[in-house]
């Protein structure tokens, strides 16, 4: 038993070092911009760069729009699958896994073929319509995470019985969805939202090929031309992702809404 414990601890330590050492190295390198001493100069340069603010703001906006569209599509779909079409669950799950299987570059080339300026839906004709196309592509990219999170939340509550109880008391479908179902999957939706945010913020391929001023292409540009600033940006990107994960945990352990048996 003692040997098992020692073995487990060794595995944890080795695994932690494997992930943490490169991060520590990156962080340490990002502090070396000023010769001879550690400083936050790289971070000052990054934060002072108007392109950083613009691209981070743009990606944040895209992430928020992606979350809204994703919730509007995924929540009713998951609800309907639970309530009326449980046999379709495997089909929907297969569809939501597609973005994980098909490379982003293939998806984007597909979009460009379908929605270029010569097609009947010329979404790449203007910057705003391209932004919309980017949002839709992000929705597809984040679909596995958003759907899984919401579906797990739906399964934790007895959707069918709660719907019947609400209907029996006179509620219509919108009331049931907004007053009974959504509040009880709020945590699941927020988990999906934070995962979506983390995915969108650092995304490069789609934003680059659609030529949009997102954070991912900015990271790549800085990385190709500077030395210390890319390390600082990498650390900032990690911190944003970890903040999202942390918020998922906080939300998950926040106000407890436990399902009745």
């Amino acid at each position, binding site marked *: 038993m003692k040997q098992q414990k020692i073995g487990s601890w060794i595995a944890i330590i080795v695994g932690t070092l494997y992930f943490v050492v490169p991060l520590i190295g990156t962080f340490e390198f990002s502090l070396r911009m000023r010769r001879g001493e550690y400083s936050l100069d790289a971070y000052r340069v990054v934060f002072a760069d108007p392109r950083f603010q613009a691209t981070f703001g743009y990606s944040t906006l895209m992430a928020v729009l992606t979350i809204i569209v994703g919730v509007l599509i995924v929540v009713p779909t998951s609800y309907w699958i639970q309530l009326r079409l449980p046999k379709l669950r495997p089909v929907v799950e297969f569809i939501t896994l597609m973005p994980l299987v098909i490379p982003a570059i293939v998806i984007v080339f597909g979009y460009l073929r379908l929605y270029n300026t010569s097609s009947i839906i010329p979404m790449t004709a203007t910057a705003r319509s391209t932004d919309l196309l980017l949002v839709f592509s992000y929705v597809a990219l984040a679909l596995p995470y958003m759907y899984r999170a919401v579906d797990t939340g739906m399964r934790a509550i*007895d959707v069918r019985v709660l719907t*019947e*109880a609400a*209907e*029996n*008391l*006179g509620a219509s479908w919108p009331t049931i969805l907004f007053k009974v179902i959504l509040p*009880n999957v709020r945590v699941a939706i927020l988990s999906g939202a934070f995962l979506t945010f983390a995915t969108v913020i650092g995304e490069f391929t789609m934003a680059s090929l659609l030529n949009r001023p997102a954070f991912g292409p900015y990271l790549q540009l800085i990385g190709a031309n500077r030395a210390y600033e890319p390390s600082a940006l990498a650390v900032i990107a990690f911190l944003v992702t970890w903040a999202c994960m942390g918020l998922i945990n906080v939300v998950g352990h926040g106000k407890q809404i436990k399902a*009745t048996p």
Partner: protein
Amino acid sequence: MAFLDLSDVRKNYGQQTVVHKFDLDVQRGEFVSFLGPSGCGKTTTLRMVAGFEVPTAGAIRIDGKDITNLRPNQRNVGMVFQSYALFPNMTVADNVAFGLKIARKPAAEIKSRVEEMLKIIKLPHLGERFPYQLSGGQQQRVALARALAISPKVLLLDEPLSALDAKIRVSLREEIRSLQRSLGITTIYVTHDQEEALSMSDRIVVMNEGRVEQIGTPFEIYNNPKTRFVASFVGTLNILKGKIVDPAAGKIVIDGQEVSAAKRIGHLQAGEACLAALRPEAATLHQTELQEAAKIASSFAKESGPRNRMVGTIEEVSFLGSVVRIRVRFQENAISLDTFNNPNATPPARGSQVTVSFGREDLLVLEGAEG
């Protein structure tokens, strides 16, 4: 005119019929239970009244109005679910108020009605609690209050006590029945627990495999079961294999011993095999030798009219506390009977010869008897 009327209601799922020709008239204020094993169609029938299932055929009327094709939120029936179905994101008070808010009642009226309902269910100080903070019994009471708050025309309960432990079940069912009586609300109660059905109902509908076996008062269902299923499902029943001797006189021979049934069995033939049923509480045990049994037989005849008697051997004695359950073996047949524990007398010993007596009216020859 019946207050709740189900006429020729049927339900099919594809080729499978889960409810066959269901006819029932329920009077205003009546408490009717649907009793039967799992899968017999009782919950499906209840759900058709609630509107969650659409009948394949037939009609359902409440107070003269045809509700067969109305949506559940248009029927004004209150339902209590087996799993309580309280809204986890709402407090107890908000749960109870939900239907009233949907109906856009004034805020003052909602507040007053919620307070009234919480008082009725004896949880006046738990309005701000969430469902997960309540015990099972409390949750069920809140579910009941929520269903009653909207002043429904009919109250439907789908095995509301099945998830609770035995003691709480007993106390809650008394509360439910008392509440139902005081409010005078027409109620349909689905259960597989015969004790619940017998103790709470004005009438019971016994169902099996989608069909109605019998409709009657608890007394009728228990004492005059019309079918073998009803006889064996409701209460404990001893089933005895016998042969008809004299159909006109109701005489049957069981394991070589002749007994009589008070009810006519004229539709059966002499020599035909039959099944007879006897409730354990109808049998009396006499720990005597054969000679003594003859004396008892004659004294029975003088005191209380002729009783049947059968001589057998005690096969098993089970001490259950206040009750002693004894199984007496004849030859092929055996019967179980219960006697009250007597601290001043030791229970009879296994292997001892005894006489079992029972009234002629207690012996039932069942319909659909098999050889």
